[in-house]
């Protein structure tokens, strides 16, 4: 009797101990990343996640429609050539394999900017939702990098010179606002490279060429 009571007490303490250890470890491990963000950063994160999730939801519903159409056609014994062509056109435009046109911005740059300054502008354009970006006859796709010291910026090893234009397709107001906001990328460039002038102009229509690069990796194959 005495022994059973002591064993029960031990068991109860062991259970409580186990629970607390787990809770404590979880509290330290789980979300350690998010918990360290300031309230302001959290607000930015929530805005970003909201916008992205809306975009992903639209993609899910368009893929669901596409799959439904493909299945219907198959059930009727019909081919889905239109769907295949539409899919091909969409993916090729995204990857930069076909020329594209649409509204956006042109960024006029003059002065001895360096490669990383141009990369900052490109990154901010992407962050603001740019769908396609180009400089002159070069489409900026994966693998295309602007390099070089101040006054020697070059894209894919071709010198850009000290006066050139960067063009991007996307929502003109959003792209312009994002680039020119106070403390934004252009303000930072003005502080670090004061002899470079950067002007953003919203435009109704720009056209960007297809890339001339081979985008299919030679050193990889599809993983099944």
């Amino acid at each position, binding site marked *: 009797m005495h022994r059973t009571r002591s064993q029960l007490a031990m068991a109860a303490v062991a259970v409580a101990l186990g629970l607390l250890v787990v809770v404590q470890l979880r509290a330290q491990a789980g979300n350690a990343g998010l918990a360290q963000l300031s309230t302001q950063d959290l607000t930015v994160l929530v805005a970003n996640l909201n916008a992205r999730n809306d975009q992903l939801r639209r993609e899910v519903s368009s893929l669901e429609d596409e799959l439904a159409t493909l299945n219907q056609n198959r059930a009727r014994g019909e081919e889905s050539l239109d769907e295949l062509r539409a899919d091909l056109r969409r*993916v090729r435009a995204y990857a930069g394999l*076909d020329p594209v046109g649409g509204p956006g911005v042109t960024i006029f740059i003059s002065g001895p900017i360096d490669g990383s300054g141009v990369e900052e502008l490109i990154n901010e354009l*992407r962050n603001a939702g740019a769908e396609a970006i180009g400089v002159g006859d070069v489409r900026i796709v994966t693998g295309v990098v602007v390099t070089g010291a101040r006054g020697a910026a070059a894209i894919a090893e071709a010198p850009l010179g000290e006066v050139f234009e960067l063009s991007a397709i996307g929502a003109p107001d959003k792209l312009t606002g994002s680039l020119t906001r106070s403390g934004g990328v252009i303000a930072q460039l003005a502080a670090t490279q004061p002899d470079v002038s950067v002007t953003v102009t919203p435009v109704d229509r720009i056209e960007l060429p297809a890339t001339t690069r081979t985008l299919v990796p030679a050193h990889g194959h599809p993983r099944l």
Partner: protein
Amino acid sequence: MTLKWLRSIPSWQITLGAALLVLGFLIAAQLGSEGPRVRYTTQERTPLLETATELQAQQDELKARILELREDIQAVEGQGAGSADLVRSLNAQLEEARIAAGLIPLTGTGIVLQLDDSQALVPPGTSQADYLVGSHDIRSAVEELWVAGAEAIAINGERVTPTTAIIDIGSSLLVNSAYLAPPYQVTALGPTDLYDRLSRSPGFIDFVRARAEAYGIRLSFAEPESVDMPAFAGTVTLRYSRPLASPSATPAGATSGSPEG
């Protein structure tokens, strides 16, 4: 006298006593760690943290769903019968375009570059941010890898595509709007001499000097037999861009200025 007294206590009581002592410490630790959060509850912080966590979980689900739907679509498209030649040719073009766009997971030769925050003590009067891996570091690493001949890149499982932005959020990163925390693993698919090319690149040598040597940013490499490149789980639907009639799509009579669709 004391020893005798101790011996008279049953051993289970000693064990229980020790366990209770640990329990007490844990309760104290738990309460202590909850202190700051309790203080935030009255402000807007806790709901924000909960919203962000929930949105992250939603994002993960949506991404998984996109990958699943793409696989299903590909499977149905691949089964297309009928005028087999045309369908087969379109499917082959689609596969190539999807690989080019980063929509298909790949495996091949390559390297993994890992970047982690410095463990050096931050001297007073200097900026702590210099000792942390920031978006600028990851962008430099990605750019150097492209220059060295990388053919596909992913950061902690997020595939780098033509629309990928890498930005700071606190001392962490957003890549494709996914929240990533250090250590960052930059996986690059490329030629077998990718590491040699990277380590010889003047830009990369400068980067190592400026970040690893000056601030103790921890850089390490792995050269596994093969690297796995994840597929991009995001949108490829362009809302503002329209494809122009390209020479490959419409060979006859197309002018580059006329929009299609």
